């Protein structure tokens, strides 16, 4: 049971608002110590796993481009486009992006999106601009943060519940591999097929919530 101390440290540390890098390090040391691994061994393990996961830093290579485009007014332009569309509301902008992200991910195109490349420079400014036009002015910080959080969420929900419908995606390969170890065989098509109901439900549930967001924003305005 003591190996779970790491989980407890994570929960308490995050709740207290301590620096997450520190919380994670302490949690790793605690769980490993409970399992009988010494600190030197754990530090080496952290070092190796950190380096093995260095591919996670690749998407940040888009940052210089995004920075330059923002400098040249990309966010201004994204706002101007939506500001000119009278029927475009925050919820509808996000709903459109949700549909686009989900459909492209279902076709295996999961790289068409992402928080750095799409949400910060394009989707979030468009969603904010729709509300600014309706409120005829700058948004208060709460409203702005809520719209931005929704823009990030739409990217996640779209890709998670779209990609599983594509038969060659990592999660389906993993499912096959794990079941095959136990002598159970499934076809990728069957697994992908049974991801479809959840994909549709995700679109309906989250889409409905986005339309509710519109109503809430309208009442606040």
């Amino acid at each position, binding site marked *: 049971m003591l*190996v*779970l101390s*790491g989980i407890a440290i994570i929960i308490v540390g995050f709740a207290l608002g301590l*620096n*997450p*890098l520190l919380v*994670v*390090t302490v949690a790793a040391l605690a769980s490993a110590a409970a399992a009988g691994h010494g600190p030197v061994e*754990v*530090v080496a393990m*952290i*070092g190796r796993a*950190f*380096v093995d*996961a*260095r*591919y996670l*830093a*690749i*998407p*940040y*290579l888009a940052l*210089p*481009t*995004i*920075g*330059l*485009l923002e*400098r*040249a*007014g990309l966010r*201004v*332009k994204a706002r101007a486009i939506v500001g000119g569309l009278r029927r475009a509301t925050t919820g509808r902008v996000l709903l459109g992006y949700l549909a686009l992200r989900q459909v492209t991910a279902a076709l295996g*195109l999961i*790289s*068409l*999106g992402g*928080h750095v490349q*799409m*949400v910060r420079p*394009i989707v979030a400014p468009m969603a904010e601009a729709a509300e600014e036009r309706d409120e005829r002015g700058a948004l208060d910080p709460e409203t702005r*943060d809520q719209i931005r*959080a929704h823009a*990030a*969420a739409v990217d*996640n929900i779209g890709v*998670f*519940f779209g990609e*599983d419908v594509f038969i060659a995606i990592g*999660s389906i390969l*993993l*499912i096959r591999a794990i*079941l095959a170890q*136990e002598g*159970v065989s499934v076809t990728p098509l069957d697994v*992908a097929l*049974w*991801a479809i109901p*959840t994909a549709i439900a995700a679109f309906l549930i989250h889409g409905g*919530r986005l339309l509710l967001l519109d109503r809430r924003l309208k009442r606040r305005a």
Partner: protein
Amino acid sequence: MIGLDALGIAAAVLPGAVAAHHALDRTAATRWRNTGFWGVFALLLAAGPWLPDLVNGGLVLVMVALATRGLRAAPVASSDAAAQAVQASRLGAWLFVPALAIPAVTLVGTLSVANGRIAGLALIDPKQVTLVALTLGAIVALGLALRLTRPPRGAPVAEARRLVDSIGWAMVLPQMLAALGGVFALSGVGKVVADGVVNMVALDTPLVATIAYCVGMAVFTMIMGNAFAAFPIMTGGIGLPIVIRHFGGDPAIVAALGMVSGFCGTLMTPMAANYNIVPAAILELRDRFGVIRVQWPTAILLLIFNIAVLASCAFPGGWGR
């Protein structure tokens, strides 16, 4: 062959340049702390594979210490709103071209060089084709952005630093959590949790077993931050022996809905930092958990939906038996 090592070196260019920019900036209050943090990060990305594990681990601890003492972003000169409006109206929709070039190049590269062979030569590690294409896309996009916007010479690095500073330590959190996941797995955290679920409830009907499996997938994904880490443990502990073998659940249905139940967990946990915490930093939200606060209601409703579908479709005689 171009593989993970080359990609690491490419990825190191960004924090390396940011570290140099910080070192040359005399105005920042935490000049050397910032320089050290991004410099060590660049070193780990580029040279990590050739350094001993213990040295890498020590370098990670140096980054943790610097981040804990606090990295403060100093303002970087960028353009003002008026200049942005002028350039935006001059360039118009062309501004979107470099941004969209990143996914476009990634896509074309991934599809056209799927096996990593170019003109018959095995040039690229087949497992890394998408990431190599993404790197190429970032380079092409940067070239296009430079031609289009014609910024002053120092602007690319200054703009990169502006964004990197605003993301801050959150940028390395996904890699730290990957390390934590490895430590948890080695310490047997998964087995303790799976045993706990099995022992806590009597799994004596298909419905109860289904709920335990789907909720277990979501909760364990929240702990590990990754549905892929949770799936083998929960499926080995509950999914296969009980839901599939004991109650005769259809394996494809059980596995597919188990996995998407894990994704519901991903939406609700700070441990999935690259989806939930890093975007909050990228979008400069004041609340670190702002994205999770927006996602959890959808995640809970979908989890209930998954349980209902699994329970009503996977069992030959219906779940009521």
